[in-house]
């Protein structure tokens, strides 16, 4: 049945997460201005907050499904702040999503408790991962993979216990040669080089990794399939499956912040006496009200696209197309919404006294990482046109 109502359990969880998030927000400015410091694993207030997981056990089959509530929780968390959390969740890294999607059951059990980052991007390769230069060479004598290469923009890179990296078994095989490997921190030859300096999400842990003859056990290849599939046989698609949850999740990160921007703008506009009620005609409204409500509708549309992609995943249905739709829609919407909120508030919007200018900077990455808006559009276009990569470049 088509339904958009939250159950009491759903509501309880989200109310709790928002309460935590508001506390976390108090520290948002500090860690934005003090980029070299990491927010703590747990805030001082954390002793009074048991964490959202304490509530998850009460959920039943009547409640909103796992991935969908996960998206809503994510939005509620970043509504507080992108980087500062009451409790830094373990097992919430992008690499954990990759492990879940591509790992064998044994691998998922073995590493499920670690916080895993995901390293794909390299200095010379972003949107086109077929250009991955990091190599994995099998040393049959020791049953080890030898990894060499450099990875940049690694989210949660400093804090993670390990990383899922993309490396190629054979550069000449293009995308088909790329496999996912799990590398634990402290492995000799694995060096966390430095934290990146960024426009936004400054408190976030974004690292550069260098691998120099880094040896990992043979069993660390996710999924365990060592052979290189023939070009076009879909082997790479398995690797890309990771994105079916991380793309909507990435959009959700941004949408939590754009919601915060909208809430702040509403509060300020109403205080200034702007009528934002929904019962006046568009033409009779103030320009500010009309624009604000347009942005609100955009927020809602993008949130629903995220929930839809997650819902399909929970139903066990393919969601390649919908994951890209949610990412493209989320990425463009959060830009427009935060830019629009600053426009609505004018000079007040750019002051560092308020967090709006920070949300404006923080959300900008949404339309870039995990596949730019343009990449998502390419994927969507190829899907609906039934074109392959050679037909639509």
């Amino acid at each position, binding site marked *: *049945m*088509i*339904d*958009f*109502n*939250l*159950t009491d359990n*759903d509501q309880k969880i989200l109310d709790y997460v928002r309460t935590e998030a508001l506390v976390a927000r108090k520290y948002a400015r500090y860690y934005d201005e003090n980029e070299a410091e990491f927010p703590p694993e747990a805030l001082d207030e954390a002793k009074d907050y048991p964490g959202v997981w304490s509530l998850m056990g009460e959920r039943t089959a*009547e*409640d*909103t*499904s796992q991935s*969908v509530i996960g998206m809503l929780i994510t939005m509620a968390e970043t509504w507080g702040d992108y980087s500062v959390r009451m409790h830094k969740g373990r097992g919430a890294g992008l690499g954990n999503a990759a492990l879940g999607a591509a790992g064998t059951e044994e691998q998922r059990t073995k590493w499920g408790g670690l916080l895993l980052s995901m390293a794909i991007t390299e200095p010379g390769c972003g949107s086109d991962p077929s250009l991955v230069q990091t190599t994995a060479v099998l040393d049959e004598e020791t049953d080890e993979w030898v990894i060499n290469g450099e990875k940049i923009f690694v989210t949660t890179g400093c804090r993670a216990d390990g990383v899922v990296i993309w490396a190629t078994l054979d550069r000449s095989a293009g995308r088909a040669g790329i496999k996912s490997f799990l590398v634990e921190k402290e492995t000799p030859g694995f060096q966390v080089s430095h934290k990146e300096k960024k426009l936004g999400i400054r408190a976030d842990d974004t690292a550069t990794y260098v691998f120099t003859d880094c040896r990992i056990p043979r069993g660390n290849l996710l999924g365990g399939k060592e052979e290189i599939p023939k070009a076009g046989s879909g082997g790479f698609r398995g690797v890309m499956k990771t994105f079916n949850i991380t793309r909507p999740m990435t959009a959700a990160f941004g949408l939590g912040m754009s919601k915060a921007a909208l809430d702040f703008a509403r509060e300020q506009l109403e205080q200034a006496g702007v009528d934002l009620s*929904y*019962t*006046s*005609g*568009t*033409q*009779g409204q103030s320009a500010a009200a009309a624009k604000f*409500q*347009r942005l*609100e*509708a*955009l927020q*809602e*549309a*993008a949130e*629903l*696209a995220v*929930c*839809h992609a997650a*819902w*399909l995943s929970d*139903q066990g249905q393919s969601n390649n*197309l*919908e994951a890209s*739709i949610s990412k*493209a*829609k989320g990425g463009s919407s959060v830009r427009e919404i935060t830019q629009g909120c600053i426009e609505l508030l004018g000079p007040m919007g750019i002051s560092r006294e308020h967090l709006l200018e920070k949300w404006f900077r923080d959300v900008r990455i949404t339309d870039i990482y995990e596949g730019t808006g*343009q990449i998502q*559009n*390419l994927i*969507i*276009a190829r899907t*609906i*046109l039934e*074109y392959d990569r050679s*037909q*639509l*470049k």
Partner: protein
Amino acid sequence: MISFGPTEEQEVVRDAMREFSEQVLRPLAREADEASALPDGVLDQVWELGLTNTQLPEEFGGGGEARSPITNALILEELAFGDPALAIAATHPSVFAFAINDFGTEDQKGAYLPRFCEERFAAASLALIEPSPAFDPFALQTTAEAKEDGFVLTGSKRFVVLGDRAEHFLVLARNVQSAGTGTESLDAFIVAKDAAGLTIGDLELNLGMKGLPTVSLELDKVEVPAEARLGGEAGIDAGRLLAGTRTANSALLVGLARAVREYAIPYAKDRHAFGEAIAQKQAIAFMLSNMQIETHAMRWLTWKAAATLESREEATKAAIFAHRYTAEQGMKLADDGLQVLGGHGFIREHPVEMWYRAARTLSVLEGVAAV
């Protein structure tokens, strides 16, 4: 629980409507637009599907199924995919009948609903829109003044669908009976076509959806009895009525947007320039992918509004989000679709110029369909 899954029954209905829309409505669309008239028999053909009576109570001859704004939104999307003008014409009696069902007194239901459960198409209209620029349904100019045993209605209405053949009009007006106390209400009044003081105008000439017959109404001190006020002394929940018609409009725009997208895609794959299909060029491909993104976004907002209505919660906000968003994006989508076809988009051999006019028309309207 958040879910995007229609019930099995809804899927069956949706599939049936899709087939009907492709096989019956789409082939008649151009003819209706060129002739500015409804093709013979199309209203009866749709009527046989039972879209209006299925959700009316059994005691009045209806199908007795639960009123479902979600099911109706799914149906309207499919019908508008075939043709929005024909979809509106054929389902417009539902606007009247559902309003009587949802807000009417038992006497009003007994008096008006049985007609919509008969075999022949029963025309009836909602008279909402007014000629003023910047029309706002929450600030109507048409007034209802209380007098002994009834009301006096005065004002002008435009874009009254099926007004040329309706037996009754549901006229929305500002009830000023309590003027001075600050408690004016938005009310609906049942007015017979032959009421004294009511002038039904000639067919209006519109930009788009030309096959859809619409008229103007002039209400010059039309006297109606107290029983003509929908809902009796309790009146109606006008916000809910308007949320319903706005959600319906959104569903129609989703169907129209899908029609454009599904026409533009094969065209762009077929049309070659500079050695390849134009769809192979990102400038075109990205317009098409945007159409895919936006038809989804439009649909989810529409479903959310319909689901809010279905769970009987306050739906004004959800409906206005859906209404404004689908209006804006529906227009953009039709505009882009025409651009993809280039010169052919401008030629009346293809339906896209018709949809372009329809999108501009539909996106400024409300009160033409109900969920």
